[in-house]
């Protein structure tokens, strides 16, 4: 996974490249060649595990069993057969094409629904006055600390009593709910920074809450929505716990569940596991590489400004 990408926009860098930064000064202590060496060592350490499995996924099962992937360079023989095998339900003992679809079907509503609900709620908290507003806002903020584990069994019992267990609805409902506290908090912070005069002007022009929301705020909110959307996408796509609990059945289980099962049952079949891992990685990594700017922005808004 070594694709170059247009990268991180960090504040205050480009124009001031000539001045030494605090970090550069600290680095000078580690006399430059050593600092560069250390950086390279770390970068290699961080890349090799993925790279090794990637190479492995293109080697024949026989070669994988007989020699380490690092020997593949002296005797290059690469094939796509592992990918064919892992995508063939009969051979793999796991239905990866179906679970790929399941991951997608699970993820899209689980991103769209909480984003819409959270922007409505954030708008209400930021620009409306009503009794109990602060209390309700703090209560929702506090719900962030509830670990998912605390909710799973009672939710499962609830879903069984509603007769929707084993369907996508359980996943959509639970992921959407779990996302709300953080989404509302982040979007609220963002909406708050919109100048009040803008809202006032719209109001004087006769706009109600609905048209203010759509015409004034939504366009301004786009970067924040994108940031949180990517977060939630990666979170849901990569989730194992919620899916195992509510969507463990083969018909609707996502990639993570199938890959985890594969790892349990065919733990030494590296030709399948390596290819399977990369089938599951390809979508989140693509999203990440394409939308990295927004992702980083969301990360910074979420943690530093908090």
């Amino acid at each position: 996974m070594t694709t170059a990408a247009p990268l991180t926009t960090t504040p205050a860098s480009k124009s001031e490249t000539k001045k030494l930064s605090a970090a550069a000064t600290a680095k000078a202590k580690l006399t430059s060649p050593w600092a560069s060496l250390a950086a390279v060592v770390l970068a290699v350490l961080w890349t090799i595990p993925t790279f090794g499995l990637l190479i492995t996924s293109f080697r024949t099962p026989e070669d994988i069993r007989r020699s380490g992937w690092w020997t593949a360079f002296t005797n290059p023989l690469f094939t796509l057969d592992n990918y064919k095998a892992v995508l063939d339900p009969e051979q793999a003992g796991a239905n990866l094409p179906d679970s790929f679809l399941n991951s997608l079907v699970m993820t899209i509503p689980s991103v769209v629904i909480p984003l819409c609900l959270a922007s409505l709620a954030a708008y209400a908290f930021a620009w409306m006055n009503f009794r109990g507003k602060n209390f309700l806002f703090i209560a929702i903020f506090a719900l962030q600390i509830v670990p998912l584990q605390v909710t799973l069994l009672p939710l499962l019992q609830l879903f069984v009593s509603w007769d929707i267990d084993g369907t996508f609805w359980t996943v959509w409902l639970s992921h959407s709910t779990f996302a709300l506290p953080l989404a509302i908090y982040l979007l609220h912070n963002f909406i708050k920074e919109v100048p009040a005069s803008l809202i006032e002007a719209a109001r004087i022009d006769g706009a109600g809450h609905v048209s203010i929301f759509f015409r004034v705020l939504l366009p301004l909110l786009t970067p924040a929505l994108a940031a949180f959307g990517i977060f939630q996408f990666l979170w849901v796509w990569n989730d194992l716990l919620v899916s195992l609990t509510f969507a463990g059945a083969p018909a609707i289980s996502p990639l993570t569940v199938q890959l985890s099962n594969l790892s349990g049952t065919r733990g030494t079949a590296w030709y399948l596991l390596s290819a399977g891992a990369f089938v599951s990685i390809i979508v989140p990594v693509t999203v990440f590489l394409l939308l990295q700017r927004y992702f980083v922005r969301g990360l910074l808004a979420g943690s530093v400004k908090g």
Partner: protein
Amino acid sequence: MFTTATTTSQKLLQMGAAILLFAAVIGLILFIAGRFTGKADRAVAALYLAPTVLMLSVGLLYPGLRTIYQSFFDASLKNFIGFENYATILSDPEQLTVLRNTAFWVLVTPFVATGVGLLYAILVDKARMESFAKALVFLPMSISFVAAGVIWKFMYEYRPDQGTVKQIGLINQIIVWLGGEPVQLLIESPLNTFLLIAVMVWIQAGFAMTVLSAAIKAIPDDIIEAARLDGVGPWGMFRFVTLPAIRPAVIVVVTTIAIGTLKVFDIVQTMTGGRFDTSVIANEFYSQTFRSDNRGLGAALAVVLFILVIPIVVYNIRQLRRSEA
């Protein structure tokens, strides 16, 4: 529409139906809200917040309280047994191993990941191809813990060293190159727990690096210039200028990773399934609740997790308040 979808078209149809249904609810809310003219804040706010409050009450608040209640019941959730589940967690040797492992995870992961992230942020700052170098370390964050588990299980793979059988896991190969005997890395406790922790560090260092790098770049130039004019050396600069300036960010990073680490489940599940003394609270919760059908104990474990998260979150928020004040 509410049943299990099996074919591709059923699945896509159901997804479409869900989004349409949801859009209809939102549309209705906005339609009613649009009927209010003037300053009808209370009514409109109630409408805007209704779905959120409903979902959070049913999906988080009620189940959370219910789990606390259930933690006082036996395996079948039929008989009230008071604090017995909690006593088990604190006395049963297996559960004590779980607690010990969880302590290892929380004490090691946040600090090592943050340390590596900070070091790397400093090392590649303003270097050529800085963004590319950062992407390499940041990328593991975007893949699932399951995939990360598979990637590292392969790194740790063991083959008995004899004749034609060669190592295919890099770590054991390095041990052999260095003249050692290959080790069944994921079986030997407590070594295996630290090897699992390494995976979490690998994932989280990128997060630490990104946040800390942004914090470092936000330090005003005049402070650095002033310190330099005062003759502060590189180490002093780091110790007295950089570190104090990014302290709030460091705290947020450490606590955020600590919270994530407490809840880690996927890595343990994928790599060892909690066997060989590697289980942690979050994993033990899952196996007690859904595998061993000891639901009371599972609930108690979830509550313990909850109790452990609270102080970290409170500390985090307090530090944030202080840095903003």
